[in-house]
């Protein structure tokens, strides 16, 4: 009895198979070009030749992309919490969340300014904070403390990715070392 591959799948080439089973996992808010660049850079470094080597290389790309994603999610979460706590600092004079009453829009704007790219806006927000004797580090520390449990998920994944990357690279090197070696100037001698 022999089993055949699923006919709905394109098996014309290893590349087609890899495209099917290793489709890029890019979320809507992620940059597909960055993913393509990362993939290209890693493939240039690894130079996979055999189809299975290519599969392992694709897995390494996915792992690197996961790490980038988890860092981004962690930073976004922390930034959002920082803004919430900064608003508290502007309104209440202490870093913390505000609940229970409406907040004037100007405080929202000041909290946004604190993380703005524009240097002048950032400086003016920092000056207001200085008057209230609060430092951005203090706000950041309190924001971090408040969502430490949520951030732990990403920290754990990022730390875990390092071990996985090392092991995957070892596997790749082992597969590469087992690649049949080509003998140059070899001739086939007919018996």
């Amino acid at each position: 009895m022999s089993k055949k591959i699923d006919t709905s799948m394109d098996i014309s080439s290893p590349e087609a198979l890899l495209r099917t089973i290793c489709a890029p996992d890019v979320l809507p808010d992620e940059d597909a070009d960055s993913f393509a660049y990362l993939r290209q850079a890693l493939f240039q470094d690894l130079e996979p030749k055999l189809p299975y080597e290519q599969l392992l290389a694709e897995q390494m790309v996915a792992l690197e992309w996961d790490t980038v994603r988890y860092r981004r999610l962690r930073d976004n979460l922390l930034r959002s919490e920082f803004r919430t706590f900064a608003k508290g600092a502007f309104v209440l004079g202490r870093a913390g969340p505000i609940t229970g009453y409406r907040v004037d829009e100007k405080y929202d704007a000041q909290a946004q300014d604190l993380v703005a790219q524009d240097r002048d806006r950032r400086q003016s927000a920092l000056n207001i904070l200085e008057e209230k004797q609060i430092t951005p580090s203090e706000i950041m520390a309190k924001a971090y403390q408040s969502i430490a449990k949520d951030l732990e998920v990403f920290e754990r994944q990022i730390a875990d990715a390092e071990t996985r990357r090392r092991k995957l690279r070892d596997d790749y090197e082992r597969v590469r070392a087992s690649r049949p070696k080509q003998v140059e100037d070899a001739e086939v001698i007919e018996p």
Partner: protein
Amino acid sequence: MTTERQKRANVANAAKSTGPRTAEGRTRSAGNARKHGLNSAPLWDEVSPYLALITGSAQIDSLALEARSRAARDLAEAEARLARCLGVERRHVVHMAEMAARQPPSVKEKIANASKETEGSLALSEWQRPKFSDATTAKVKNVRPPPDPNRPAALHQTLTTLMRYRKEAEAQRRKALRRWLEVQ
């Protein structure tokens, strides 16, 4: 102790309910204990692309117990299982990020939002405790609602479980790869 009458009633009741009868019902009940399927053997459709990549062939003689084809099949199965675990874990972490960003509003925030909408007249019905008058509804109030599957503790617990399955799948893959390289 069970009385004779109770025994007879048990037998009579058991005869009325003998489980699913149709093929569809039996198939459905066969999966009753299934939680996520991460431990189950991958389907042939999931395995075959990996096998093609490993051996360069789209076919395998599944009855041949030759060491090379067995090692290739094991490696393909391990790859398919790992891919399944990784996909589930990835989606779960992204879901956790979404849940962490979407913090539920506190009661005070609800009041503040309500006052924005109704200009001072608070819609108290939302947080007023329901009044129970008769005995039947009084019983109902003691029924606890099922716990929210998106609560942080549950999400963390699920992630720990998913990571464990993924690590097992990785170990299985490494072992299968070692065997595959030995028979090369």
